[in-house]
């Protein structure tokens, strides 16, 4: 496989804004001059189901889907979903996850508990693991809804792309009235 390709997976729960986050990432890679492909499943998954978005960039990208076991970076919006998709990663991959839980149906119905100690379990398999208080930091930036942008900031530090490019991508993809808070949230994430 072509080593020059970086494989990013964004995982979480339908309705968490994963698609917008993956669009911002893709936009930044294109602006930085890379070939980019992205893939995800719409439809059923929007109704609160588990969601995975694949983003790949490099000199020339073929498959829009990250081959199993080839993920370089896992970008988790919810803890259980972050853990669920670890098998898509290669050994030594990076994990950046929001410290945020959404109970799945069996937990809501009291038939199962939310699995305990997930951060520890992730850390044991993939030591390059950053747990982010996305909601907390976003609140400091001015709006909880910017939690994903905090996360984007944290992921951005692990990618060799210039500050100005990120700025340009955010300006293009984020609605004007939310831009200032999102730029702030992004900067906070980038400092982590």
């Amino acid at each position, binding site marked *: *496989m*072509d080593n020059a390709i970086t494989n990013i997976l964004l995982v979480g*729960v*339908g309705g968490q804004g994963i698609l917008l986050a993956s*669009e911002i990432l*893709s*936009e930044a890679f*294109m602006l930085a001059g890379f*070939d*980019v*492909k*992205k*893939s*995800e*499943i*719409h*439809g*059923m*998954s*929007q*109704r*609160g*189901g*588990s969601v995975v978005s694949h983003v790949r960039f490099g000199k020339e*990208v*073929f*498959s*829009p*889907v990250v*081959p*199993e*076991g080839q993920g370089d970076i896992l970008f988790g919006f919810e803890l*259980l*979903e972050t*853990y*669920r*998709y*670890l*098998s898509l*990663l*290669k*050994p030594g*991959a990076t994990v950046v996850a929001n410290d945020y839980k959404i*109970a*799945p*149906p*069996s*937990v*809501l*119905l*009291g038939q*199962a*508990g*939310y*699995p305990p100690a997930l951060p520890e*379990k992730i850390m044991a*398999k*993939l030591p390059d693991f950053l747990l982010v208080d996305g909601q907390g930091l976003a609140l400091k930036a001015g709006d909880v809804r910017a939690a994903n942008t905090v996360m984007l900031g944290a992921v951005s530090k692990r990618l060799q792309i210039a500050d100005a490019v990120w700025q340009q991508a955010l300006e293009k993809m984020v609605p004007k009235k939310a831009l200032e808070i999102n730029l702030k949230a992004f900067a906070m994430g980038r400092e982590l």
Partner: protein
Amino acid sequence: MKEILSGNEAIARGAYEAGCLVASAYPGTPSTEILENVINYKEINASWAPNEKVALEVAIGASFGGARSLSCMKHVGVNVAADPLFTASYTGVKGGLVLIAADDPEMHSSQNEQDSRNYAKFAKVPMLEPSDSAECKEFTKLAFELSEQFDTPVMLRSCTRISHGKSVVELGERVTGLPTPKLVKDAPKLVMLPGNARVRHPLVEERSVKLSEYGDTAAINRVEIRSSEIGVICAGVTYQYVREALPDTSVLKLGMVWPLPHALIREFAAKVKQLFVVEELDPFIEEQVKAMGIACQGKELTTLCGELSPGRIQAAFAKAGIIKVAASDVIAAEPVPPRPPNMCPGCPHRGVFYQLNRANAYVTGDIGCYTLGFMPPLNAMDTCVCMGASISMGSGMVRALPPEEQKRVVAVIGDSTFLHTGINSLMEMAWNKAPATVIILDNRITAMTGRQENPASGFTLAGEETSEVNIPELCRVLGIKHVRVVDPYDLDATRLAIEEEMNRPEPSVIITNRPCCLIKGAGRFEKGKILEVDQGKCTGCKACLRIGCPAIEWKPNPDGNKGKAFIDPQLCTGCTVCQQLCKFNAIGGRK
């Protein structure tokens, strides 16, 4: 200018650049966003049709009027549109006519994974298959040109990974100078009665031969020689998988998957020692190559079911001893609770399924958000085959059953699905006096596919106000004597309606009247008062959990006593359904 576009956005852009004037579609994943993007180009008259047959006929009419026209649908939609498709193949076109069929290998959001390429061969119309967004745009433009050049409808096949995948596209300008649409009398070509059709059929066969010859030299069919050992024939997204999985092999990339370019295939086969066909789903190309007398392997290696991927292709070739792949370490995670999709908090469908379950109904179901009513804890759907089938299957089922079982049969269908093909079924049921009960879940929108307008919504795709089908009146004129409207947020009224109509030995229809919680705007969904559980009053009986609302969470008690229910104020829409289930008055407005 370069942009990152999804396949669907690129198809819409291609239609725009090709000078398309009319577009008609019925929503269906993964095709829906094509028309939702076409509507952004003011030059194109784009609208939803009630079903795919109507959508294709609208496009055929516009084509006969001289306009370049487009119709889009998911793979199963082509079943509905097959009738006009097969005869439009005989008539050919005036303005270019393009039909987009979006397949869903792996059934990410579909009830089957039929391979649309068979339709191209069956209807004898050419089919193009793009492998990324840039090709989606270019092939759509080419499809319009080929349609006029060869006097045929042209199909373009997408799939989930192409339609919902994004990649970089270079934008172009809209063509100018196309002929202005006008009426032309041309009965021998456009009136398909036996005498005329007999003249057209040989032309169709000649056209297929010419298209195959065109394919021998057309740039969309491309030979990439990298080695003389292994050659792979592939198309569409599979081309991308093959390039990644087998980077050193030679490839014949087909942009036109029917008819096949015979001379080009022979030429390619002669250049390699071993020939393979890698394709998702059916051995469509493989069987034709084998029928040409060329030795090749295809489904000996890869599966007939589901998607391919670079990993699956490598594994298949490694298993057959053709390549070696180094084993890589796998990160194994323990199994965790699944997260299936669920109906939204406050969804008006929920209470109906709760009462159907309690009434011990046998539910012939249909396709939409409400299909999720089959899942626990509601467990209230027993069949689901295709759009519109709920009513006709219920009507058939009662004929087979003894009277005490007949009562239990209830057909459940959404408004969009009822207007798609359910009307015919209800007409049949009334006409033939089948004593089943029908529930039409009228939430004013086609919710499952992302909230598209339908003929009962009162709005067009462009957002303009328009006529609104009166569903109760429609049921009456179809011959149903017992039609009643019920508020699905009123559990007692819903139960009463269901019980009375189930017991009635005549055809009857119940219509629910609450909008989907996700449609906004005046006169549509309005949030109620957000509720909370009084922790002092909650006895932990779990009655409220039986509706499976995602806003209600069971919190076990750490000291071993009974747990209690909580309502997430961020999610609750105040529908009051859970409140009506609580016998202890523990659920009330948030203080």
